[in-house]
């Protein structure tokens, strides 16, 4: 006799979505979490694109601890003190259930919902080993007598997945497949946020920034508004951070937290972040896989979901992982429900992967498979913004030698940098196609 039908390792949104759905279908499920309380170890930005959660928990907008309803997206490209940006508001996005969330709070609520459905939550327990033994899977934990057996395991234990590594499913994370992020939560009062960001009460804005410092690819910043705080953070691909460090910017290299501090001092940024006090500092890794090099994500009776499976999509101006985690957790639950019905647990992993492949998660990752090569293209962070800056200066300035036609200035700027128009068109076409 096994202890549970399914054991889910990790109570982030991915694992909790799986546990919720399994319990809802009467499957005996345990949700094992290393933190004292759900959410205590977890970090996000972040905007929850909530359509998929509505599918699972329709009442979530009324019940969950949410930040603000996102009504505006902003993208800013920075270059030598200049800021070039797009601001997007549209009645069409007002109906979408997209909210900023602080996962520390959100995950506690979500786990309670899963418990209400019948999932057994086991906190303060770190899973150390997972091994399949014939008809059962043994889940070893760091608690004396805390080992558990089950028919199948869902590894929802985040970017540094233990399950994926000890079960030998996927290779360990490499430099090029991961990014580092650091983040500040800054307290600001409600009315300041509403005035500063031009928002009505309850409305939220999301900002993405690229291009600082010039010439470092794969480095971006974000700012999200909450009820009475903002989150400001930096995300950098580990390889560019290491490379950039090696160039010896300040002796032994520049830590990401120093870059974030300098970013917050920029003229284009300071008015947005000044005032409040930092209440929490956080750091974590983010998966940066391409569709073409996604890691393995299943074995017979084990599936990996969310960040453990590398399921994130970085478009430069939006970053998706929360909804992909929830959806992949739902796919794992569906696979287990199928295995239970057919009493065929050995094909659990395969069943999961098929469901995932047919879901919007993989469709979107596949459709946008060209993006990583665009957002890692150094020209987009250095030379192209510089050209844009010169062209805009030429357009808006009435002084000095800002005369003549704008397209002539564009060609002049390109020639000065030895950039061929054909190359620009090719890069532009590649970008348009991937987005």
């Amino acid at each position, binding site marked *: 006799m096994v202890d549970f039908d399914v054991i889910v390792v990790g109570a982030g949104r991915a694992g909790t979505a799986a546990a919720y759905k399994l319990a809802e279908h009467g499957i005996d499920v345990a949700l094992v979490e*290393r*933190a*004292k309380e759900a*959410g*205590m*170890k*977890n*970090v*996000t930005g972040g905007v929850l694109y909530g359509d998929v959660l509505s599918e699972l928990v329709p009442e979530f907008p009324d019940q969950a601890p949410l930040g603000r309803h996102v009504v505006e997206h902003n993208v800013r490209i920075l270059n030598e003190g200049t800021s070039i940006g797009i601001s997007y508001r549209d009645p069409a996005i007002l109906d979408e259930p997209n909210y900023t969330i*602080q*996962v*520390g*709070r*959100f*995950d506690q609520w979500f786990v309670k919902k899963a418990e209400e459905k019948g999932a057994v939550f086991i*906190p*303060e*327990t*770190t899973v150390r080993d997972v091994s399949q033994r014939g008809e059962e899977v043994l889940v070893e*934990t*760091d*608690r004396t007598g805390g080992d558990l057996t089950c028919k199948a395991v869902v590894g929802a234990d985040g*970017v*540094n997945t*233990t399950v994926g590594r000890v079960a030998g499913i996927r290779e*360990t*994370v*490499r*430099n090029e497949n*991961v990014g*580092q992020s*650091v983040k*500040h*939560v800054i307290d600001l009062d409600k009315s300041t946020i509403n005035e500063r960001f031009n928002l009505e009460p309850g409305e939220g804005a999301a900002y993405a920034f690229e291009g600082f410092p010039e010439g470092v690819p794969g480095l971006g910043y974000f700012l999200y508004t909450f009820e009475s*705080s903002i989150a400001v953070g930096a995300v950098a691909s*580990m390889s560019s*951070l*290491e490379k950039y*460090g*090696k160039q010896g910017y300040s002796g*032994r*290299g*520049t*830590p*990401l*937290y*120093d870059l974030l*501090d300098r970013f*917050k001092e920029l003229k284009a940024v300071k008015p947005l972040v000044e005032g409040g006090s*930092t*209440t*929490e*500092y*956080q*750091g*974590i*890794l983010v998966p940066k896989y391409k569709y073409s090099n996604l890691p393995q994500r299943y074995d017979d009776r084990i599936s990996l979901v969310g960040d453990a499976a590398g399921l994130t999509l970085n478009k430069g101006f939006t970053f998706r992982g929360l909804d992909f985690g929830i959806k992949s957790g739902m796919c794992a639950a569906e696979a287990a429900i199928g295995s239970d019905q057919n009493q065929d647990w050995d094909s659990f992993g395969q069943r999961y992967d098929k469901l995932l492949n047919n879901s919007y998660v993989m469709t979107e990752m596949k459709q946008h498979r060209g993006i990583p090569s665009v957002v890692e293209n150094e020209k987009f962070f250095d030379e192209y913004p510089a050209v844009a800056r010169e062209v805009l200066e030429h357009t808006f300035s009435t002084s000095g030698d800002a005369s003549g036609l704008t397209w002539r200035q564009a060609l002049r700027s390109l020639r000065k940098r030895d950039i061929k128009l054909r190359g620009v068109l090719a890069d532009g076409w590649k970008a348009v196609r991937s987005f």
Partner: protein
Amino acid sequence: MSVEKDLETVEWDVGEEGHITVDNSECVDCEEKPCLHLCPAQCFDYQEEREGGIYFSYEHCIECGSCMVFCANDPDRGAVSWTKPDGGKGVEYDLG
């Protein structure tokens, strides 16, 4: 805002034993020493007089996993042995 000040905003329930260990005799051959600028919690410190140069303290680790990637998993390095703290121990965020 310096990172020392940032780290004052973070809480831990520190475990008795280190969940991450560093064999600093390996560090002698590591020229770049990326740990010094890539650990977001400044757990790595450099002291000239020490063999390998590196002091490591796990108490203020925020469990990001960076040193697993740039040291433990790097075939040219490998001073770091990386695990997660025991259940209930380690960093405790409020907001996330």
